[in-house]
C-alpha cells in the first residue's frame, strides 16, 4: 500500500481502542513507558461496562462485584480500604473515573469516536479509521501499534429457541431495574452470574420465578467463615495445594455452606469443581429453599403463551430473560489478524498478543476466576514492555517473538473447563499472572 496525502501520520504513537478499565490501564502503562497514545472511545465517558449510563453497559441497578475488593483493584491504585468487600457498580465507576483523573489520562482520550477499521500497512504500522459517533466524516491516521481494549461483555449472545412466544423476551443486557420484574411471571434462562443475580432479584419482585439451566453447577457462597470466598480460595493457592486436593476441599466446603441443591430439583454438576467459571451467589440457595425460585431444565421451544422444557413440562411466563452471556466482537479487525476461527473465537498468545502481528494486541480478553483489573494491568505492562523492547533492542525482540508467538494455549494453561463459549478465555488468575511474569522477565532490559 502506498501513502495517500489525507492519512495523518502519528509516527511512534500507539492507538488504544476503548476507555473501559482495560483501556485506561493500557493508556497509563504505555505513557509510563514513554509512548504517545491516542485512545478512541465511542461513548462519551470512561468506565466501559461499569458505566451504567452507556447503552451497552451490561450492569443492572443492583450489581455488586463478585470478586472481592483486594482481588479486583489495580495493583498500583488500590480502592479505598473503607469500601465494602463487594463494592456496588457505581463505586467501580467512580474508582475508574478517579484513576483516569489521577493519572491525567483524559487528555489522551477522544470520546464519541469509534474505531471502524485497523489495517496493517507493512513494517508493523497500522492505518486506523475512526468515525465520530454523532455522525460525520471518518478519518484515517497511521499508528505504530494498535491495542484493542474493546471489552467482551457487551454484545449479547442470544439463544436460538424455535417457535413463537406471545410474551416478552429480552436479553439480560436489557435488564436494568427490578421494576421490570414486578408482579410478573418471569423465566430466567442461563446459570451464569447474571442469570443467578436476576433470578434472585426476581424472587423478591416477581409473582413466579423459573430458573432454567442446561447443566448443574457449583454454587459458591460469597463468604466462607466470615471471609470473602475468593480470599479463602487464594489461601489454598498460596499454599500450593494440588488441584485434586483443592477440588476435595471445595466439595467439602460447599457441602458445609451451600449444601446439596439437588433436593430442590437442580441437577448435580456434570463437571468437577474449578471446571466452570465460578458462580458466586449466597442468595440463590436461600430463595430455592423458600420456594421463590423454581429450577427448571433447558428450554426446548416456544409455543404461543407456553414455554416447553426438556423434561416435557410446559410453563407459562409472561417475561423471558435470556441471561446467556456475551460474544466477543472485533468488527474493526480482519478475522485473520487475530486468528479468529469460524465461530468467532480469536487465537492470541496469552489471549493478548496477535501471533503474526507483533504490533497488535488485545487487553482484557479474559475470564479469570478473580477480578479482571489486575490481570488487565499486567497484560498492558507486558504490551508496553514488548513495544519498548521492539523499539530499543529489535534483535532481542525478534528472539522473544520467535520463542513466544507459536506457543499454544496449552503450553501455559492446563485448565480443564466445560467446552462452551463462556470458557473461551477462562484462566486461573495465578497461573496466568505467572505466565505474564515470565514474559516480563524475559523482556527485562539488559543492565
Amino acid at each position: 500500500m502506498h501513502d495517500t496525502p489525507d492519512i495523518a501520520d502519528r509516527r511512534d504513537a500507539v492507538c488504544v481502542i476503548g476507555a473501559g478499565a482495560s483501556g485506561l490501564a493500557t493508556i497509563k502503562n504505555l505513557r509510563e513507558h514513554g509512548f504517545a497514545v491516542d485512545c478512541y472511545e465511542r461513548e462519551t465517558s470512561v468506565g466501559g461496562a461499569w458505566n451504567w449510563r452507556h447503552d451497552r453497559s451490561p450492569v443492572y441497578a443492583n450489581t455488586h462485584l463478585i470478586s472481592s475488593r483486594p482481588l479486583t483493584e489495580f495493583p498500583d491504585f488500590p480502592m479505598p480500604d473503607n469500601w465494602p468487600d463487594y463494592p456496588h457498580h457505581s463505586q467501580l465507576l467512580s474508582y475508574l473515573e478517579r484513576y483516569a483523573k489521577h493519572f491525567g489520562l483524559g487528555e489522551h482520550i477522544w470520546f464519541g469516536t469509534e474505531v471502524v477499521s485497523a489495517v496493517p500497512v507493512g513494517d508493523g504500522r497500522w492505518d486506523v479509521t475512526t468515525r465520530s459517533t454523532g455522525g460525520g466524516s471518518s478519518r484515517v491516521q497511521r499508528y505504530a501499534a494498535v491495542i484493542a481494549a474493546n471489552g467482551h461483555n457487551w454484545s449479547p449472545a442470544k439463544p436460538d429457541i424455535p417457535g413463537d412466544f406471545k410474551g416478552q423476551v429480552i436479553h439480560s443486557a436489557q435488564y436494568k431495574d427490578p421494576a421490570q420484574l414486578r408482579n410478573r411471571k418471569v423465566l430466567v434462562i442461563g446459570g451464569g452470574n447474571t442469570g443467578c443475580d436476576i433470578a434472585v432479584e426476581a424472587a423478591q419482585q416477581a409473582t413466579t420465578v423459573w430458573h432454567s439451566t442446561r447443566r448443574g453447577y457449583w454454587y459458591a457462597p460469597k463468604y466462607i467463615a466470615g471471609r470473602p470466598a475468593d480470599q479463602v480460595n487464594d489461601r489454598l493457592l498460596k499454599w500450593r495445594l494440588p488441584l485434586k486436593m483443592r477440588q476435595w476441599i471445595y466439595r467439602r466446603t460447599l457441602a458445609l455452606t451451600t449444601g446439596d441443591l439437588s433436593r430442590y430439583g437442580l441437577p448435580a454438576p456434570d463437571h468437577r469443581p474449578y471446571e466452570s467459571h465460578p458462580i458466586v451467589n449466597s442468595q440463590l440457595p436461600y430463595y430455592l429453599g423458600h420456594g421463590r425460585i423454581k429450577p427448571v431444565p433447558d428450554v426446548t421451544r416456544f409455543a404461543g403463551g407456553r414455554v416447553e422444557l426438556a423434561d416435557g413440562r410446559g410453563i407459562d411466563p409472561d417475561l423471558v430473560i435470556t441471561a446467556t452471556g456475551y460474544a466477543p466482537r472485533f468488527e474493526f479487525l480482519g478475522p485473520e489478524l487475530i486468528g479468529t476461527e469460524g465461530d468467532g473465537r480469536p487465537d492470541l498468545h496469552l489471549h493478548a498478543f496477535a501471533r503474526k502481528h507483533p504490533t497488535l494486541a488485545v487487553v482484557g480478553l479474559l475470564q479469570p476466576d478473580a477480578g479482571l483489573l489486575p490481570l488487565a494491568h499486567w497484560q498492558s505492562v507486558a504490551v508496553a514492555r514488548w513495544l519498548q523492547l521492539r523499539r530499543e533492542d529489535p534483535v532481542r525482540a525478534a528472539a522473544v517473538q520467535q520463542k513466544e508467538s507459536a506457543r499454544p494455549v496449552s503450553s501455559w494453561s492446563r485448565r480443564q473447563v466445560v467446552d462452551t463459549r463462556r470458557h473461551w478465555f477462562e484462566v486461573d488468575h495465578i497461573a496466568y499472572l505467572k505466565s505474564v511474569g515470565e514474559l516480563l522477565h524475559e523482556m527485562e532490559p539488559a543492565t
Partner: protein
Amino acid sequence: MTDLLRFDDWTSPVPPVEREVLSRLVEGEDGQPPLLFVPGPGLGAWAFAEHWLAHAAGRGFPAHALTPRADGGLRAHVHDVVQTAASLPRQAVLIGHGAGALVVSRALGRYPARAAVLVAPVMDRWATLGAALKANPFGTLRSRPRLNRKQLFSDGVDAEAYLARMAFSRRLTVPKETPRPVGRPPVLVVGSPDDRVVPRKSLDRVATHYGGAPLLFPGMAHALMLDTGWPEPIDAILDWLTKELSAGS
C-alpha cells in the same frame, strides 16, 4: 514474580484505620502535583505542619502530611501511604523522612509516584543502628527506642516541646531488598552530614541505589523539617522538583 502475585493482600488485607492527614491546599486546580509527606512512626503529621506544609503550599504545591498508624508494622505503614496517595486527585510526590523514607521506598514499589524524596532516610539497618548506639546507647537498646534531643535537633530548637509530642514505637524491620520504583519516578536523597541518626555513608549508599548523589545540608540535625534552618532543605527540594517536572513533561 512477587510483584504480580500478592497473596498477602489477597488473603489477609491490611485492616483499615482512620488516618490523620493534615493538608495545606492551594487555590485553583491544575498547578503542581500534590506532595505527601510521610514521617517515621515516632513523629506525626504535625512535624510537617510546623513549617514545611505551609511553605510548600506557598510555592504552589498542595501539601499533605500523614500520621503513621499507632503500632503498625512496615506493611501497614506502606498500605497507609499508598491509600493516602491514591486518594489525592492527582499523581502525588512522596516525601519520606527518617523511617518514613523507608516506608516511602517500599511504597514506591507499589504506587507510581510522580517523584520521590527521601529525607534523612533510615534505610540502612546496621549503619543507622551503629550511629544510634554511639549517640544514645540507652535509648537505642530499648524495645521501643527513644531518640534524644541531641540526635534530633540542633541548638536553638525548642526540643522539649517537640520531644513531648513524640510517640515511641517499635523499630521497623528493614527488609533486605529495596523494590524498584514502579513508573520510574525521579528520586532525590536529602540529608545532613551532621545527622547523628543517619551517617553520611548511609546517605551515599541510598542515593547510589537510586542512581544519584545526596543533597547535603551541613550543620543540620536529623529532624530537618523542625530545625532552625528548615527553609533551606524544603526550598532545595521544591527547586529540584520544579526542574524534574518540567523535564518530564
